[in-house]
Each structure stands twice: as C-alpha cells, then as structure tokens.
C-alpha cells in the first residue's frame, strides 16, 4: 500500500486540479482511511453552496451606468489616435497627394529620358545562378519571421492586458523562448538585406528582454513602465503590420515583384 494522501492532495482531487487522478482514484478504492477522509472532505465542501446574490433587474446595468457616468475619468487616448485629428489628417492627405505626384512625375521623367524595353520594368533581371535558391530561402525566412511575430504579439498582448500587480512567469517563459529565435531571425534578415525586418526584430528583442528580466511577481508600477515603453515604441502595432506585410508578400508570391525592403512607415 502506498502512503496516504494528504488533505491538500484530496482537495486538488476533489476540484479535479491535481495530477495523477487515476492513481489517486485507485488508492481511494483500496485505502479505507483515505476513503473516509475524502468522504468527510466531500461532505463538507458539498454543504458549502454559493450564496444566492440578491436579484438585480433588467435595468440594473442602466442604474450602474447612471451612478458612474459622471465619475468616469478622461479616456486615455491611444497613441495612434493623435493622428486621427482632423488637422493632422488634412496634413497627411496633402502629403500623400504630393508623394503620389512626385512618384508619377518620377516615373514619367525616367521613362522619357532613359528608354528601356517595356519588359525590363516589370520582370526581374535575368536570374543569376542560385537566385531561385535565394528566393526560396527568403520565402522560408519570411514565413518563419511572420510566425515568430504572431507568437511575440501574443506575449506582448498578454502583458498589455495585465492589470495591477501580476505574476508574469508564464509570459516570461514564452518571451525567453522567443528571444533566441528572434536573434537568429534578425541576423538572417540583415544578411538577406531585409533591414526593416531586422530593425523591428531588434526592437522586439529589447522588449522581450525587459519582460524576461522583470521579477515574476511584477509590481503594477513596473508593468506600467514596460507597457509605456511598448506603447512609446508602437511595438505592438509594428509587429502586427510587419506580420501582415510578410504574409501578404508570401501570398503574392511569384506574381508580384518583391519589394527590396519593407515600407518605412513602421520603422
């Protein structure tokens, strides 16, 4: 007969939280003292029923709203909303028009001054030996980086959603795993000439390191500090945009010419 189970083991068993449930069950079937102890525990816990909360009517939500509506603080606007102000939108619009005009003018000017075969402007240059292999490697890299960004986004999102002091040991475990991978991808991206990818990965690494090096039972102030830095670097946004851009490049595949680098608006 194996040793008897403690009250803690039996509590976990009752709540179906403990490991080796089959083992405990087997023991209970054979051990009289443990069976009696478990029966007593069960009888007590079953007698503890949830207190019935006083009824709240259908209008309760509205009542709560009426009580709090004048106490709501000023909403902290997210960083990007600053760009949605009408004057800034107008400025951005004007800038975009100028940019498009400059691009069209540039295309027209170069087409007029440097005649080139039409095919040269849309088709890639004749492939050098090994170019197909390079493209294949690049596609694999971009797919891996996109997956890596998805995983990183989940960690960052969890950190952004914590409230008050929290145990972030789970997020730290994930972040630690991601750091090493991130370094490798950053190096590969730099070697492949994907500078904007490398830059975002570098920023991501810094945040992941900060998360890993924070005490697991992080204070509210410490978490606030991390969140502020993530916010200030617009990191979550960059990770999302880069992820979706890489996925877009994968789906476009061979049909569209591959840009040499990612758009700079996120770097």
């Amino acid at each position, binding site marked *: 007969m194996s040793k008897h189970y403690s009250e803690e083991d039996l509590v976990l068993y009752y*709540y179906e*939280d403990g490991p080796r449930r089959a083992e405990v069950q087997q023991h209970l079937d054979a051990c009289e003292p443990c069976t009696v102890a478990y029966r007593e*525990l069960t009888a007590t816990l079953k007698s503890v029923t949830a207190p019935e909360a006083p009824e709240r009517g259908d209008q309760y939500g509205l009542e709560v*709203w009426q009580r709090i509506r004048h106490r709501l603080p000023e909403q902290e606007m997210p960083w990007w909303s600053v760009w949605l102000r009408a004057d800034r939108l107008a400025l951005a619009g004007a800038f975009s028009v100028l940019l498009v005009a400059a691009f069209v003018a540039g295309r027209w000017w170069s087409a007029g001054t440097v005649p080139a075969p039409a095919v040269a402007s849309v088709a890639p240059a004749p492939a050098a030996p090994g170019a197909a292999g390079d493209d294949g490697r690049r596609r694999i890299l971009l797919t891996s980086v996109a997956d890596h960004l998805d995983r990183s986004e989940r960690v960052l999102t969890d950190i952004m959603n914590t409230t008050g002091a929290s145990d972030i040991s789970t997020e730290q475990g994930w972040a630690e795993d991601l750091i090493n991978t991130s370094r490798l991808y950053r190096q590969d991206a730099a070697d492949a000439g994907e500078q904007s990818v490398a830059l975002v990965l570098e920023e991501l690494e810094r945040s992941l390191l900060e998360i890993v090096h924070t005490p697991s039972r992080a204070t509210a102030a410490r978490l606030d500090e991390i969140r502020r830095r993530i916010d200030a670097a617009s990191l979550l946004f960059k990770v999302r945009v880069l992820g979706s851009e890489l996925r877009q490049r994968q789906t476009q595949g061979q049909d569209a010419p591959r840009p040499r680098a990612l758009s700079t608006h996120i770097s």
Partner: protein
Amino acid sequence: MDATDVAAAIARARQGDSEAFQSLVERHSRRAFQLAYRITGNEQDAEDVVQESFIRAYRQLSRFEARAHFSTWLHRIVANCSVDLIRSRRVRYEHASTDDLGPAEQPESGGADPERLAASAQIERKVSAAMSELSPLERAAFTLRHYEGRSIAEIGKTLGLGTSATKHSVFRAVRKLRAALEPLRGES
C-alpha cells in the same frame, strides 16, 4: 450583442464614446455584481465593487487588446477590486456580527421541511461566518475555485499569484471552513 459588437463598442469607447461604454456596462453589470457579491458576501460592498470595477476598466481601456475577451478581462478587475475592498474594510469584516450575515438572513421559502431548512440556514450562517474569517486572497481564491469553477491557473492569473500560492490560498480556506463546520457534523 455578439463578439463583433463588443469589439466595436470597445473601439468606440476608447475614442471617448461614452454611449459605447454604456452598452458594455449594461451588458456586464449583473454578472459583475454576482461575482462581487460572492467574494465580498455583502450587497452594498458588491455594489461598490461593480461601480469601481467599471471605472477602473474605463481608465484602462486603452490597454485592453481586442484579442482578449472583455468579460474575462472585466472578471479579473472585479475579483481584484473585491480583494482590495475586503482589505480596506477588514476591520469591519473582523467585527461583523452574525446578525449581519446577508444571505443567511434571507426569508425562507415555504413548503420545505422546516428541520432541513433550519439545518441548511445554520450551515449557511456558519459558512458565512467562516468566510468572513478568511483573508481577502483566501476568500477570493476559494470563491473562484469553489463557486465559479475556475482552474488554479486561471485563479492565479486573475489574482496575480503563482500556482503554489494560489493552491495554498484554496487549501487554507478549505481547512478553515472544515474547522468551522466540524461541530455541525457531530450534530447531523
């Protein structure tokens, strides 16, 4: 209101649209009250917790990420607000008399066996008194595990505790409740 509507309401509320936040308050208030009541064991305290929770949620809305569930996020806020409130009113809880035990004092419905009802009311009073002796974290952890059916991992995440600390909060709560109910076992 489905998940898309909730997400849209959150997005609008973040922009300062109070009507959008109102729709979230109206949708989640009753559930928030139920949880707050179970943890605090007091109607007025539960009311305070609900209001404070929504104010906290509104203040922190910019940190909420759309991938998470608003109800889960709010659940965490309500649990932590309840713990904070119990801590701040600890003195009152410690001196609460059994005359002020809330649910146990509810009028009993007719038709049931009077002896059984009396025994049940006695258990409720004992449980309520024992619950008021628990520390705020023990009380919250036990409520989330026993009444709400949350896993140890979820409770730890909600209350900002490690797995071991969460388990021990539940163990201590169970031990105290058993000790409080022990005399009744002899009577039955």
